[in-house]
């Protein structure tokens, strides 16, 4: 592994391939992109099925079970239904923005997968600024959502779009800061390196970091309790209210790809990625992704939604200080106590983490009051 190559370097990427992989770099690029997109879509379909079945169980019902065994093909039936619907563009819409919005939302999510290692070496580009690339691109999705809200010229949409922007600014900072702890421990921004550095999963060394990252990622994928952007009971569907047919399908795919992405990232950053005993590494990654997603679904099916001001107060006053303290503690440990045994660190960080979160959550009140008019 060449360690000090910066940025996008085809040679470097080529070197991560198994030696008997056919063709040159560009052939590899083409084949692997197709594999990746197939992987994403297959996982999205599995996630949709998984979520619907799981939510069904949470809601004392069965969930979809008619199409195929255990309702496995329900998602495919849904896709066929969505794609055959009429594609309606509102008369007063900003046509160009309206057309571009689904693409702007979908493409960056797919691009992020380029740096997510599916197993050792199974990665399109092993960027050594991988984390920065992930954060930069996944924020672009919000631009797509804002474009959708603006372009459809609908009042509900614009409220949803404005909420998304407020949300982006609020959660992105704690999210990034929580990853810095992981980066400090690893000493690298490359996602493969982060996985290799996890002799014990970072969730044990960085419990606060995991906590903040997980909540931040819920906000990033607009999942409950941060689904303000498409709050069904308030603004009906928010930004995608005017979208139908294949454009809606693109948004839907973007949303679920983001869920897949965030599950994969959580698994990679905190749960040890592809590493694990006995089973093949790729399967381990999938298992961890499904575990993370099950947690997301659990939260979705049980928690009510934050109000927008409460959500921002939560991000700025609760998550951000926690992320900063986590960063400080991690840096102190690395500078002053680098030789500490990891299990002591695990115990200490859990003790500190649980105390901090409990104490903080007792004193923190999201509040929000009536505005004088």
């Amino acid at each position: 592994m060449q360690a000090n190559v910066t940025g996008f370097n085809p040679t470097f990427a080529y070197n991560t391939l198994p030696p008997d992989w056919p063709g040159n770099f560009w052939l590899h690029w083409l084949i692997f992109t197709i594999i990746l997109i197939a992987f994403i879509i297959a996982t999205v379909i599995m996630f949709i099925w998984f979520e619907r079945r799981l939510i069904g169980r949470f809601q004392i019902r069965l969930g979809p079970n008619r199409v195929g065994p255990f309702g496995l093909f329900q998602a495919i039936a849904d896709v066929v239904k969505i794609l055959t619907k009429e594609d309606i563009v509102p008369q007063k819409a900003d046509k160009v923005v309206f057309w571009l919005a689904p693409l702007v939302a979908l493409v960056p999510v797919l691009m992020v997968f380029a740096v997510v290692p599916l197993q050792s070496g199974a990665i399109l580009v092993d960027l050594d600024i991988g984390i920065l690339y992930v954060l930069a691109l996944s924020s672009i999705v919000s631009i797509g959502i804002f474009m959708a809200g603006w372009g459809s010229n609908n009042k509900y949409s614009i409220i949803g779009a404005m909420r998304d922007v407020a949300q982006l600014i609020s959660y992105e900072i704690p999210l990034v800061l929580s990853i810095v702890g992981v980066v400090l421990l690893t000493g690298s921004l490359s996602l493969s390196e982060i996985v290799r550095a996890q002799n014990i999963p970072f969730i044990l060394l960085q419990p606060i970091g995991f906590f903040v990252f997980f909540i931040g990622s819920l906000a990033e994928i607009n999942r409950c309790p941060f689904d303000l952007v498409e709050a069904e009971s308030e603004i009906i569907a928010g930004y995608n209210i005017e979208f139908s047919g294949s454009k809606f399908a693109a948004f839907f795919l973007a949303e679920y790809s983001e869920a897949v992405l965030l599950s994969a990232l959580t698994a990679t950053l905190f749960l040890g990625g592809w590493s694990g005993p006995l089973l093949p590494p790729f399967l381990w990654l999938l298992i961890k992704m499904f575990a993370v997603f099950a947690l997301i679904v659990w939260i979705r099916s049980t928690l009510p939604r934050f109000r927008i001001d409460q959500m921002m107060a939560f991000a700025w006053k609760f998550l951000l200080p926690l992320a900063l303290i986590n960063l400080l503690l991690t840096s102190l440990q690395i500078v002053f106590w680098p030789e500490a045994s990891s299990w002591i660190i695990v115990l200490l960080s859990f003790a500190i983490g649980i105390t901090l979160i409990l104490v903080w959550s007792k004193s923190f009140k999201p509040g929000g009051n009536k505005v004088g008019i």
Partner: protein
Amino acid sequence: MVTLKTEPFVINLGPVHPSTHGVFRLRATLDGEVVLDIEPIIGYLHRGIEKIAEGRNYKQDIPLTDRLDYVASMSNNLPYVMAVEKLAEIAVPERAEYLRIIMAEMQRIASHLLAVGSLANDLGTFFTPFQYMFREREKIVDLFEMVCGQRLLYNYMRFGGVSHDIPDEFIPALSKLVSTMPGFIDEYDQLLAENEILLARLKGVGILPKELAINSSVSGPVLRASGVEWDIRKVDSYSVYDRFKFDIPTGVIGDCYDRYRVRIQEMRQSVHILEQAIEQLPAGEVLAKVSPRLKPPGGEAYAHIEAPKGELGFYLVSDNSEKPYRMHIRAPSLINLTALREMVIGWKLADVIVTFGSIDICLGEVDR
């Protein structure tokens, strides 16, 4: 520095909107997310029930009352038949009085379960509390089906009693329900009211002060949540309610949380009343002899009950014919709705939905 001109914008919540519990429309003027003004617009479900009632005879009007608050039909039958009984001076057998109270209290539990479930839905939980509330509501609806064959619009009460006596298996099933229901209520209350997000969304939101509550004539759980101990079952006791022991739960400041809490506690009190009613239930007739072509003597009568949503009253004027000369319905949903504007101004858009949900209206009753 250039100051950009901003202006409030008007948004139409409804009539087709997931959280308006029907076809209610709300014109809201917003400054960003903050609500500057709202204007409720009603009438999308107007069927002219009061007018239709004038064209049919007294007995034919009973099914019409089912269509008012269609999630609490039993409670709608009761004040209408009480008003007619007052007009025509019909005596009701004791067993029938007890059956009416059993039905009304079961209906109160069913209606409050629905209210709490849909409030949770308005808060943004993805249907899970709603499904659990409906599981319990199903058991009550099954019991209603047992006595009158219907699951939504019961048409069960008659002048001078109720249409059928209860089947033999009803009381054991009801006892089972009564013994298990407190456990479910506690469980759901624990799951909901110990959730920090839910508390943050409900506490202090949409406050209805005591004076305003009294002045705007609201009733039912909304009034009691504002700290007024007013329950028709106590202050103007009807039927045989004076034979039961129960408390009137009240709130403190009249926010959404108090309204939620009053409903939860009222369900417990209803279970308590049901327990006593099963014990005291006498044997005997359930329907007095009343002429099918009832012609009450001329005059007027008003009967009101404590329906799940508030004071439901029927005002009837008779001109000694087969048909009522005039029927007026005091619909609690409509009158409770009048306080909505004062409750939500200055709050966020999301709070409007929650406050609206916490009032618990039924559009069938608002528009009539």
